């Protein structure tokens, strides 16, 4: 099972929101869709879900234009909210039926999920009697109850306590192991790193970086050294290391002119200073994100 977005363009009036978005996501894996606020993530998701059509480009499922009648999609929107005044079981059944389930199978599936998420006791309560985190778990059921092939989770972990976050992690892993396509959108990079094999970073309506997360990290230029030393202030003052940036906890990041200087530089440092640690800097997803999503922003501002 493979979901593909091909050269999606979308304008709202004069404003270009998406300019040629293409990516693909496989069944049995999670795909991370990253981007700063206003980068076009929600618009991409809405086009993917056929809320409105793209100006050009197409959404493909296994190479063919997606048939929304056959392909179930579950969605947990970033802006949460259901009917506050209605009984939980009633509204969950309603949403599941809208997705095409029969009443009895909907109730059965919802009862399973209420049990799975530890919410069975709230089955017949009104939604607004629940805490925010529990309401979020209820909303998660609207995304999962109809057993969709594609699960889209927008900031699923925000607002959850650590225990609930753990529960959600397990649920997401289960969904992935069932062979579903899980599309993640989040600003909490640690979760993306934990789940997603592939990512795409959106910036101003374009994908500025995409691919396998491990490959991205491996291919990241290894031209930075992370140094920890009690003499860090002396190192920073040293004229040899012109491109040294201070970090927290007696550390600094030294950028080399080329990765080839690595061995020489390490030797020099070790000879001149008392070092606790020196290693090649491996960027976290957070660093990559800031670099890509942030840099383009700067360029845009200059232009």
């Amino acid at each position, binding site marked *: 099972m493979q979901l593909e977005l091909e050269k999606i363009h979308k304008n709202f*009036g004069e404003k270009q929101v998406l300019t040629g978005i293409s990516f693909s996501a496989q069944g049995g894996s999670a795909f991370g869709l990253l981007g700063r606020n206003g980068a076009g993530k929600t618009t991409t998701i809405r086009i993917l*879900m056929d809320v409105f059509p793209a100006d050009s480009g197409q959404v493909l499922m296994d190479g063919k234009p997606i048939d929304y009648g056959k392909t179930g999609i579950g969605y947990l*929107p970033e802006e*949460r*909210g259901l009917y506050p005044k209605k009984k939980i079981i009633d509204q969950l059944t*309603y*949403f599941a039926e*809208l997705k095409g389930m029969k009443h009895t199978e909907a109730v059965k599936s919802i009862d399973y999920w209420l049990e799975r998420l530890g919410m069975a006791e709230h089955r017949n309560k009104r939604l607004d009697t629940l805490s925010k985190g529990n309401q979020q778990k209820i909303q998660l059921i609207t995304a999962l109850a109809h057993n969709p092939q594609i699960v889209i989770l927008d900031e699923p972990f925000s607002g959850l306590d650590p225990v609930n976050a753990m529960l959600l992690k397990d649920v997401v892993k289960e969904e992935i192991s069932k062979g579903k396509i899980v599309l993640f959108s989040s600003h909490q990079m640690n979760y993306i790193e934990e789940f997603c094999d592939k990512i795409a970073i959106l910036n101003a309506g374009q994908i500025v970086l995409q691919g396998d997360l491990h490959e991205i990290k491996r291919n990241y230029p290894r031209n930075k050294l992370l140094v920890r030393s009690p003499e860090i202030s002396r190192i920073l003052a040293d004229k040899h290391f012109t491109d040294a940036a201070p970090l927290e906890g007696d550390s600094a990041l030294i950028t080399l002119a080329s990765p080839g200087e690595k061995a020489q530089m390490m030797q020099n440092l070790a000879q001149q200073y008392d070092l606790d640690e020196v290693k090649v800097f491996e960027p976290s997803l957070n660093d990559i994100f800031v670099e890509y999503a942030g840099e383009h922003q700067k360029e845009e501002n200059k232009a």
Partner: protein
Amino acid sequence: MNQFGTILKFELKGYLKNKVFVGITVFLMAVIAVVMFFPRIMGLFSQDEAQPDASGDRPVLLLATHSGQYDEGLLEAFEAAFPKYQVVMPKIDNPDDPELFRQEIEQGEAECAFMLDGLTDYTYYVKNIVMSDNNTAVADQVLQSLYQVHSLREAGISAEETEKILAAQISHTTESYGKDQIENFFYTYIMIFALYMVILLYGQMVATNVATEKSSRAMEVLITSAKPVSMMFGKVLASCLAGFIQLVCVFGSAFLFFRLNQADWGNNFLINSIFNMPLDLLLYMLLFFVLGFLMYAFMFGAIGSTASKLEDINTSVMPVTLLFIVGFIVVVTSMSGGSIDSPLMVVCSYIPFTSPMAMFTRIAMSTVPFYEVLLSVVILIGSVVGIGFLSAKIYRVGVLLYGTTPKLGAVLKQVWKA
């Protein structure tokens, strides 16, 4: 279609479980029950009141003549004309004394007094002139006929003939080739008013319903689960059904209670004219009610989708509400003025925004050729379908717009492009 059914069921359940909705319906039914049982209830009370009267304890009416002479038949005539009183003829010493009856009347020994100066002139004495006092009018009639009898008799006409002349009655019948506007006025008015109330009330409900989903963000899930057309039509038809159920409850109970109390209402013109409404008119009413309701509900729904806060709803729906109120005023003014077929009304009966009220009024109170009715209904149905789909499009654009309420023009521009 499946989604539409699911939405319809869910929304309708929402109405029927709504305490306010149920409360208003029950309240209206109770009010109607009280109104319909009113004559029977009043009957019970007035029977109680009538009993002491029958036991001979009636108020006293004093009757005296200035001359002290009593014409033949005067007392009998007064007794017949004032059955509620005990007519007494006191002895009068000084007929010119203006304080003559003061004591009796003020002390309540007598309720009123008549001092006759011949048959054509009298003075009426009473303590307080109450609104419902028609004693002088009754006395006028009694005296006039007595005077006529006396005069005719003096002219040498026999008693038999006098009676014949005076008893002559003018009878007339009216044949109407069209409609009876007087009789139709009341039920037309009630129907138009019901239409007006229901459309405004439910229109607001639809708008609020959509805006609530939007502001609670339930829309985010809804819009990705169901097609806007299904959403809009499901919601609007559910509200239409709810409104219809309410009307059936209210009018049905009115009819039922009327049947139970038909005897007590007797020949009450107003009530009878309302309940003798012809069936074909009722069917027209139903047709125009459904179409008018749908059209306005679609518009209200579309507006609800563009509001970002619930508080904005009232101002946002203002233009549509005003349009509807203007239509209502035109129709009601034409009804009361009797100018049912004025050019304004004819035009209004084709414009879809006013035709549900205007055409219905014309059908009810005037004679409208069938092709005119057909044309009006066709235009209306076309508009309902058109506005339905347009409102679904506005809805799809509107529900995803947060922040300030967008201008109508901007929304339509986006709808055009989408």
